Every structure is written in C-alpha cells, then in structure tokens.
C-alpha cells in the first residue's frame, strides 16, 4: 500500500507557519511597495518568500510512504532522494499530535520512534483511517484481519478541578503565568500609542499593581495549563497504555509495554503537604522527556500507588513512597539551603562585591549544597531484577528501573571506612543517567557490582 498524505496537508502546513511568517511578510511587502520600481533587498526577500511557498507542495509531491508486511518505507526528495525503512518490530512508540491547523483540517502528525530521543520517522498530515492503520501495524496486527471492536478501559481522566490543582501544585502557574503575563504586557505596551501602558500603570498605587500582576499571572498560568492539559486521559486501548491531552495541540501517546524500562513516582513539597504524587514512565525512547511520558499528573498518593501496582506491578518496589509525609525533614532541608543563600547574600552586601560575583556566589551556594544534600538523601535499594533509587530530600523522587539498565558502578572509600563515602551508578533507561549517593554500605555497593556483572543473570 503506497500513499501520499492528503493534499490538504499542504494547506495545513501553510496555516501552521502563517503566524510566524505573516508579520515578516507584511513588513517585507510594505518595505518593497515603498521602493517600487527599484531593485532592493525587499524585492529579493519577497522573491525568496515566494520560493519558500513552493517548499510544502514540493515536499508533499515528492514524499511517498509504503506500508509493507515487514515495515514502513518513506521515499522522499527531489534532487537528493532518500529511502528510509523501519521494521514494525523495531518501533517502540507511536505518538499522534494535532496542532491547530491539523485539527482544523482533521489531519494528524504521527511520530514513529525507535530506541532514541528523536523520532525515526514523522508523517505530517495523515487522515484518521491511516493513523488507525499505522497503530494497528505497530501494535503487531495486520489490517487484512478483521479487527474486533477496540477495548478501552479508562485509568484516569482529568476534569477541570484536577487541572486547577495540577496548575497550582506543580508550579505551572508561576512558570507559565509569568511567561504569559510578560508576553501579554509587551503586546499591550506595543498596542497603546504614545508612552505605552507605562503611563497608565504609573498612576496606580504600587500595592495595586503587585496585586493585579499576581492575579493576572495566576489566571494566565491556570489558563495555559488548562489549555495544554485539557482532557488529560489515561486509558488502556486493547491492552496498550495510552495517554492523550491538549486543547489546541492534541498529543496522543501509546506505550509499548516492552519499551517501559522504569517508573518514576515523585512529589514536591506542596504535593507532600497535600498527600499527592505523580507518576511517569521511563521508556526506551523518551527518558529525557518526562513531561511527555507523564502517566498521572498529580493525584492522591493512594491512587498513584494503586495505578502503579496495577499497571506496572513488575516495576513497582514493595514500598513506593515513604509512608509518612516527611514534611519536617523536607522543611529543614529547605530552611538550611535558604539560610546558606541568605548568609551568602549578606556577605555579598557586607563586602560590596562587584555585580558579576553575585550570580556566581549565589548559584554556587544553592547548587553545590543542593547536589551534596540530595546525594546524602539518596539511597539505592536492590530487589533483583529491580533497582530503586530513592531520593527523599525536599521533594521525594523514587525511580525504579530494571537492573539490566545499570551500566557501571563507582565507589569512593575514605580511610578504609565501612561505608563508601560516595557511590554512583550509571544507567541507560531510554537515556543516560548518573545517580549519586553518599554513605552507602560496602555490602550494598558489592550488591550493585553484582547487578552490573549479571550476578542475577540479567546481564
């Protein structure tokens, strides 16, 4: 079966690039009109812009896909032709996205990924039946066989309340809100004539300005989170774990169970306070992008633990999160770090240090003790064929991976002590990672060495 994407994918491509191209195009055209009759840089730019318009149709015309029993083949190129083949068996995940232009024209972007960060093949502008066909093929079944009705069992579906909590608890409000507010401010400032918005704002009392800014930031942050994670749905489709979310840009990700190499359960200090946690999976292809691999955003910890045990039982350690909230210890660590930075700031003030010293000193006072304390509060738990890395510092992060993912172990022992001053392990669970811990017992270090060398038969 050989096909091209539907022709309307060319329109989708134009629409998608419109917001970024239009302002530039308007400026170029206006500048060009002002100098009509004279060859100028603007005319050259217009010519180049017109040429670039040809890119999408040419790409569409020269790209063809072939679905075979063994895999998918992509032939493309006009001057430099290429053929890329992917075996169905080698595809570890299929991700379906829809940006606003695709949603408008009912098209999809499908990313097929193997064991790497970058998708091995991206098909832009596919119809829904073709997406289903690809999913069937990647799932290991042929389209010639009549498919039974899809069995869907929902694990979790976020409602508006969940998204609001998620926005507040995970700090999305502060990150997205500040960025959104800044963009909004610039837009308003440019829009108003004369001295811009500054004149109007300057007339208002400072405390009102601050209150309005905080309120606006919160609203913008919540708004962006709700739009980004709208309809967050985790389900089992024909036994495969699937997540989807997004209002304007829809993401749909399906996980091959064999590609899941580990699970991460974590909670920040606010989530500790509220008794909540989140769950993500480490897959062969996307370890570095936990955001994409989030399975449960932020839910009561009992729900997270139940889902982890039910769906990733072979990867869940006997004790997922520590039983108590551990708020006292977390708060103490936070206070210790804060005090250190506070003392540093005071010293910088007292010595009237030059401005360039400030970021260096403050970052060092924050990051180095952070690293040391985090390593001090990290423990390795061996439970063959799993290893659990438990970091219980300000937040708690429990990473459980298959022991075959461990690649190397290093230790440092000072003065022949009974414990290792430091121990590190390097793992590859979809991406390289090094974990450090301080004060690991020698027996445990030997156990880690055993895991690396395959003493449990996994290597």
């Amino acid at each position, binding site marked *: 079966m050989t096909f091209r994407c539907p022709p309307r994918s060319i329109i989708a491509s134009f629409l998608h690039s419109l917001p970024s191209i239009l302002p530039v195009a308007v400026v170029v055209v206006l500048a060009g009109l002002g100098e009509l009759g004279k060859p100028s840089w603007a005319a050259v730019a217009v010519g180049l812009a017109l040429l670039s318009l040809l890119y999408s149709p040419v790409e569409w015309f020269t790209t063809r896909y072939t679905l075979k029993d063994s895999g998918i083949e992509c032939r493309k190129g006009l001057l430099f032709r290429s053929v890329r083949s992917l075996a169905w068996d080698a595809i570890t995940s299929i991700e379906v996205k829809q940006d606003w232009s695709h949603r408008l024209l009912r098209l999809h972007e499908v990313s097929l990924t193997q064991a790497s960060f970058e998708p091995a093949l991206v098909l832009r502008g596919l119809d829904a039946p073709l997406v289903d066909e690809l999913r069937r093929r990647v799932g290991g079944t042929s389209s010639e066989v009549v498919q039974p009705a899809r069995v869907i069992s929902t694990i979790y579906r976020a409602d508006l309340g969940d998204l609001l909590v998620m926005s507040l608890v995970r700090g999305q409000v502060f990150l997205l809100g500040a960025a959104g507010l800044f963009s909004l401010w610039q837009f308003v400032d440019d829009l108003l004539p004369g001295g811009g918005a500054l004149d109007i704002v300057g007339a208002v009392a400072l405390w009102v300005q601050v209150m309005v800014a905080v309120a606006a930031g919160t609203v913008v942050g919540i708004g962006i989170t709700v739009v980004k994670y709208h309809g967050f749905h985790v389900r089992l489709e024909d036994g495969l774990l699937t997540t989807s979310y997004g209002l304007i840009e829809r993401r749909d990700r399906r996980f091959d169970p064999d590609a899941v190499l580990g699970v991460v359960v974590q909670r920040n200090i606010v989530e500790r306070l509220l008794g909540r946690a989140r769950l993500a999976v480490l897959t062969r292809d996307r370890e570095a992008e936990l955001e994409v691999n989030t399975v449960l955003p932020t839910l009561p910890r009992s729900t997270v633990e139940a889902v982890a045990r039910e769906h990733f039982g072979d990867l869940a350690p006997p004790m997922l999160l520590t039983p108590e909230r551990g708020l006292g210890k977390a708060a103490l660590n936070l206070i210790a770090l804060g005090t250190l930075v506070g003392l540093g700031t005071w010293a910088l003030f007292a010595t009237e240090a030059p401005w360039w010293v400030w970021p260096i000193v403050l970052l060092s006072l924050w990051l180095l003790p952070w690293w040391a304390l985090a390593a001090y509060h990290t423990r390795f738990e061996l439970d063959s064929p799993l290893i659990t890395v438990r970091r219980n510092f300000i937040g708690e992060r429990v990473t459980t991976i298959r022991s075959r993912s461990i*690649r*190397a*172990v*290093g*230790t*440092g*022992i*000072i*003065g*022949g002590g009974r414990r290792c*001053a430091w121990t590190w392990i*390097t*793992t*590859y669970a979809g991406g*390289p*990672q*090094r974990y450090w811990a301080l004060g690991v017992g020698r027996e445990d270090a030997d156990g880690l*060495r055993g895991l*690396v*060398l*395959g003493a449990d038969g996994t*290597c």
Partner: protein
Amino acid sequence: MTRLPRDARMYWVVSGLVRMAVLGIGLAAAVWFLNWPRWLFVAPAIVVVLGLIDLAIVTLRYRNYGYRVDEREFFVARGRWVRRTVTIATPKILNVEVSQGPVQRLFNLAKVTVSQVVGTHDLGPVRPEEAERLRALLLDVAEREER
C-alpha cells in the same frame, strides 16, 4: 589484580613536573605581564605546592593502582586513603581507545580509555602491547554482545 608497569612511576613524575612547570610559569607570567594584583601570585604558588604533593605520593599511587579486565568485568581500583573503584560489565563497553602522548612514548607506555553509554573511564598507563591486548579483548566481547 594486575599492577601497572614500573615505568608508570617515572611517567607520572615527568608528566607531573611538566604540568607543574607549564601551569605555574603560565600563571606567574599572566600575573606579572598583565599587571594583575600581586596577591594573585598565590595561584602559581598553590599549583607548585599541589604539584609537589602529587610528586611525593607517586610511589603510594603506584602501589595502590590495580585493574582486572576479563570477559566479564572491567574493574579499576586506585588510591589508598581515598580508594576509588569503577566496575563496568565488559559486554556493555561500546568502544575502546588506546592513546600515547609524547611523554608516554618516551617511556613506552599507553593509555586505554573505554567508553560506555554514560561517559568514559581511563586505565593506565600500561605497556602498548598490554593496551593492544585489552583493546582486542574488549572489542571482541563487545562484538559478541552485538551478535
């Protein structure tokens, strides 16, 4: 555990002296010719002191450096007061590099660097023929793992 060849000590001494001279003289020259504050002469002084300490413990370092490389593991242990070890499963090693600098060539030595998926680890200096033996062994195991 396999020990390093005896010439490793002389190599460490000579390379330590060269490093100390280059760094110390370079820093002192920078302070002198670039008119940096005079108290910055403490930097080359620290380099010299650390270099001398490094030279003083060469014998100790030699005595406490050992390695074991076979089809199962790549194990390196070094240091006495601060004992550092690295263990890698030989089949997980991705590639091996044997390098020889001018000072190493002077003493007929070479360094072996193994790369795994997260970072690299050094071994040596060892004799070039031993380095070549290790390279062949590690690559042979890696090839078998690929198959």
